[in-house]
């Protein structure tokens, strides 16, 4: 069944088509809300909310953008604005592997896990900007619109987030002459 047909049938309440549409896009939706949330419980709430919003809006989908883009934006909005960020449990710094695998080692799974865990341990503001910019490819102008901040603030948060990630992922590098480099 084509995507257009699937969307049309799901929009008319067809349970099989709805399930299939969910099956196709659930991992992508869950990934964005999970990384924005930083914890599983919040992500589950937001993912459900995103799907309910998407199905509510589905009859109005006109195909003017790709469905994946449309759904992605709903997921982001659900995560950022659909529900107030609830008070987090006190979170401790995530224990990351002391030494990450070498980038050419081929052990990408470990690297991905480390990145996701490092994301979880970022402060909410930094994580939102880093996920939206570096993971999801939003521009600073788009992020500013979504978060209600200036593009400059988005940039500033991004650079701080990258620096924090760097420290979380690896110990400071030793300079050739033995001195520690790049102090913040």
């Amino acid at each position, binding site marked *: 069944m084509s995507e257009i047909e699937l969307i049309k049938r*799901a929009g008319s*309440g*067809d*349970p*099989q088509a*709805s*399930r299939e549409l*969910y*099956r196709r896009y*659930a*991992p*992508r*939706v*869950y*990934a964005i809300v*999970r*990384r924005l949330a930083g914890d*599983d419980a919040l992500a*589950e709430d937001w*993912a*459900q909310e995103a*799907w*309910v919003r998407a*199905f*509510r809006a589905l009859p109005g989908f006109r195909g003017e953008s790709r469905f994946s883009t449309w759904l992605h934006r709903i997921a982001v909005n659900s995560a950022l604005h659909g529900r107030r960020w609830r008070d987090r449990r006190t979170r401790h710094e995530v224990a990351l592997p002391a030494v990450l695998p070498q*980038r050419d080692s081929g052990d990408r799974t470990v*690297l*991905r896990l480390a*990145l*996701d865990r490092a994301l979880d341990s970022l402060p909410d503001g930094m994580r939102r900007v*880093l996920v939206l910019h*570096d*993971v999801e*490819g939003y521009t600073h102008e788009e992020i500013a619109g979504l978060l209600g901040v200036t593009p400059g603030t988005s*940039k500033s948060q*991004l*650079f*701080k*987030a*990258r*620096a924090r*990630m*760097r*420290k979380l*992922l*690896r110990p400071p*590098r*030793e*300079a*050739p002459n033995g*001195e520690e*480099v*790049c*102090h*913040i």
Partner: protein
Amino acid sequence: MSHLTFETIARLVDEPPSTEDAAHLEACTACRAELEDMRADAEALAALPPIEPPDGEWRAVERRLTREGLIRRAVTGGTTGAVLIRMAAALVLFMLGTAAGIAWMDGRQPADSATRDQMAAAPSSGTATEPPAETAVQPAPPQRTAAESAAPYSPAVASLPAALASNPQLAAFLDGEEPRSYEAAMQLYRETEMLYLDALTRVAQMNGGIDAGDPIARLAALEAITSITRTALGQAPADPVLNGYHVTALAQRDATLRQIADRAGDSWF
């Protein structure tokens, strides 16, 4: 040498360096390496894969969508499958329960051969011939048993063969044909459950003089209880008290079945 800060290097991932920063990078291999690592981090973040949602997410979403009327009630394979499994379980329990009664009665007292033949015929084949008339059984004096007290209904079906004769859908199911709809499956499930309860009650009655510790009577009573709690859970599936009653009754029923099996010197589990 004053090195670039991490934040400066983070900015250089996206933006061109100032003249001063470019000069530093030209001279400092460590900061160049840091910049390369940070670029690699950004690339790795962009390549992060999708994440599978937790099990049961669709169920939760589906419940909300159904409640809001955004999707029609699904007759999913999973739901129908679950009903079929319950139907099959009911039929198996029907057969096991009847066989248990026979085995237990054999161990306790000599059973009337006609009775035994009648009871053995029904579960063994599913297409057995019509059993002897009810009067041949000569049930115990009409005293009220625990099973009767607990059972909220009268036996609706005289026997499995009679049920099969009057219900082509049930016969078709036993021949391997699946019900055509969720509603048909539920109807068959209810009928098979009634058959089982009916058989269990009759076994208890046939034994006569049931004492308080009689496992057959207890099994009949527990089956009646689980039937009631199952119906109640259909109306309030999340009610913790009802769930507690139901789970307890199921556990007791299973324990009683094992007790009966042990007594019969047989093992079905």
